[in-house]
């Protein structure tokens, strides 16, 4: 019972993040939407029991975000 409620909430969060990432225009806003999406995905991985995969995903997502920000900061200068 409680797991279905958690799954439903996470589904809402994931689709909210995806729609926000797709619809917002500003690149910083798009990155914030991407962080929403990843926040919905990681508890789903933990619920299946793959803790090491969750650790690797949680470390690698900010690294890719920082790569994109590196391109975005150099573009303005």
């Amino acid at each position: 019972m409680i797991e279905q409620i958690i799954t439903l909430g996470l589904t809402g969060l994931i689709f909210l993040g995806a729609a926000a990432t797709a619809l917002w225009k500003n690149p910083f806003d798009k990155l914030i939407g991407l962080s929403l999406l990843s926040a919905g995905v990681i508890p789903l991985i933990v619920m299946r029991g793959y803790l090491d995969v969750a650790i690797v995903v949680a470390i690698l997502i900010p690294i890719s975000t920082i790569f994109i920000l590196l391109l975005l900061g150099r573009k303005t200068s």
Partner: protein
Amino acid sequence: MSIALYGAARTVLEKETLLKLPFVNVMNFGIAGLIVFILPHPLTLVAAAAYFVGSTLEANAIASAIARRKQE
């Protein structure tokens, strides 16, 4: 129990302009608590800490990039 505050954080999250980073931070706290709640295991602590540090680093990078862009 944790779900109620988690839903509150999510609904609060989607208004405001570019100072929506505090709402993202609230949601990160909620998610890090939720991860520990759904599987009590010692490795879960490492997962929650890794997620929290990663999201904090991401927010820091976004905010500093906005600051650098606003300076120029």
